[in-house]
């Protein structure tokens, strides 16, 4: 019976597949161990978060955010009634923090920043805040993009809290003022992120995967058996990818311009330089990733290991300020964050060369470092 079972075709096929899988350490690592490590890392990082932190800009209240306010404004009354704690932010500016405890859903902390209208708009465009609170003639005004679900949620939570905590006869009139001007909408935030992400994915798959596949099929080995200059092979690949990325980004921008009326507020030449720097950074990373392996399965894993965390963390679809405060300085230094932030500041904040110089230099340096490291490890056969 046991012998018959061990001779079973199906069993042998299953065993063969198991052996094939377990004997390939790369596949095993990227298929099993890496997702566990990812879940461990992200789980530890983000499940222990105590509060959902929501930043809110308050305009026209500059004097009211002092440590000893003397005001009768509705917003300040609301904050004082709820014992909102005065805290200094990193720049030493006083903010007010109001924590709403909730055992089941987790605590929500609102941090109120007193800002000028201009600064509030910059914060909004960067995705640091999603709502601006203002008070005019006793009317509380909520300024936000009605198409932004996060802003809607903030409005609902905040307005409910405000109505609940103030005495009935002092609840001020409130109105929603939709922010739909160019640069403040969710789509304005999204398009630069998508452009940056497109460059990253294009380099990862178009350069990295293509090299690994050519190595696995012995095409690289065949090519280096000729007098072909090895640098030409890589230059050609990166150049074509850069041109392709220009076309892709151009078409995406054209679409966004036609359909959503998105414009470039800042310097176009700075945008082009930053775009090239970003391409260079991701091409360098792509060369590094593809420098050694000849197995497409391992290449798949490597590409996902590099690109997925950046897609999640780097503020492509939503602001990375939703992540814990301690993680933000690190997230901001990721190449995708650098590129997305830079494009965003040019497109919607009107930045020029000076404002994106750091990002441009950083991205170029990443490209150079990874390219050199990749070339040192590079296997042509």
């Amino acid at each position, binding site marked *: 019976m046991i012998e018959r079972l061990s001779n079973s075709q199906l069993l042998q096929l299953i065993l063969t597949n198991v052996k094939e899988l377990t004997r390939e350490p790369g596949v095993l690592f990227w298929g099993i161990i890496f997702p566990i490590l990812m879940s461990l890392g992200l789980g530890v990082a983000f499940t222990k978060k105590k509060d959902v932190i929501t930043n809110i800009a308050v305009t026209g209240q500059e004097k009211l955010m002092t440590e000893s306010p003397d005001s009768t404004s509705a917003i300040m009354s609301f904050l004082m009634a709820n014992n909102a704690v005065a805290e200094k932010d990193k720049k030493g500016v006083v903010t007010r923090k109001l924590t709403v405890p909730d055992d089941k859903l987790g605590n929500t902390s609102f941090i109120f920043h007193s800002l000028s209208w201009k600064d509030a708009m910059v914060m909004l465009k960067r995705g640091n805040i999603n709502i601006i609170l203002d008070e005019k003639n006793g009317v509380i005004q909520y300024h936000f993009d009605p198409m932004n679900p996060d802003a809607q949620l903030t409005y609902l939570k905040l307005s409910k809290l405000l109505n609940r905590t103030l005495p009935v006869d002092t609840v001020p009139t409130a109105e929603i003022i939709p922010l739909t001007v160019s640069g403040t909408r969710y789509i304005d935030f999204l398009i630069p992120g998508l452009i940056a992400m497109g460059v990253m994915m294009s380099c990862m798959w178009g350069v990295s995967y293509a090299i690994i596949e050519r190595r696995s*099929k*012995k*095409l690289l*080995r*065949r*090519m*280096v*058996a*000729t*007098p*072909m200059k090895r640098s030409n092979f890589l230059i050609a690949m990166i150049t074509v990818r850069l041109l392709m990325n220009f076309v892709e980004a151009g078409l995406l921008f054209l679409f966004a311009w036609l359909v959503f009326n998105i414009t470039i507020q800042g310097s176009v030449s700075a945008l082009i330089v930053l775009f090239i720097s970003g391409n260079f950074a991701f091409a360098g990373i792509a060369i590094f990733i593809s420098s050694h392996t000849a197995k497409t399965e391992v290449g798949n894993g490597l590409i996902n290991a590099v690109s997925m965390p950046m897609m999640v963390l780097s503020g492509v679809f939503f602001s990375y300020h939703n992540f814990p405060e301690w993680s933000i300085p690190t997230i901001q230094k990721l190449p995708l964050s650098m590129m997305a932030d830079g494009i965003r500041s040019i497109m919607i904040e009107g930045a020029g060369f000076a404002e994106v110089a750091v990002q441009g230099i950083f991205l170029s340096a990443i490209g150079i470092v990874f390219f050199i490291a990749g070339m040192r490890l590079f296997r*042509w*056969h």
Partner: protein
Amino acid sequence: MNDPIIEVRNIHKSFKTVQAVRGIDLHIGAGQFVALLGPNGAGKTTLVEMIEGIQQPDSGDIRILGKTWKGNEKYLRYLIGLSLQETYFIEKLTVWETMRLFASFFAIGKARCGEVLNLIALEDKRRAWVVNLSGGQRQRLALGIALLNNPKILLLDEPTTGLDPNARREIWSILLKLKEQSNTSLILTTHYMEEAEQLCDYIVIIDHGKILKEGTLSDLLGEIQDLPVKQALPRKITLDDLFISLTGRHLND
């Protein structure tokens, strides 16, 4: 023999615990067609890769036209043509585009591409994508690419493995034409004795990284005349019989 085109002196090569090549000497003259005949794992491909310059021997010396690979790689690459057992060219390039790509590495123009296309009989597939070629056509394309630069040395690693008899004969026919018309030296690895017999004027039988026997076909078959196996066989003696008498195994084992 005139000055050899390829000189291999006592080379050794190991990979971890496997000794792939163990003290091989080889001298190949201009225009000579040499077969490296042996079963899978005999060390043929490793030997060719060392001659081709992509593997370094652990010890010993390899000279191509009197030059070692070190410091002469750029020059030597212009002299060598290579075809591997399996090369997947870029699938969505046409035959012509693929030839033009490889020709560009040697700074060769369209005229030579046309000549080679004619030689490998793929003119009618000029605009066909590589992905749509049959196995035999792909291997002819690989051979054509190896011939683009009119190589002084042609290295073919099992060029007909996996091909049907017709496709194999088409490759042989191209190589025989080359033998007639040029002074190219050929090193061909194979485990098909008919291939070695048909194409090559010098045969080197390799097993376990060592040369077991070498010589012309008639020399090698002559050696078998006195062996007991001759009396036991009612048919024509082949190189496989020699291999059996030397190792107790078939070439294709």
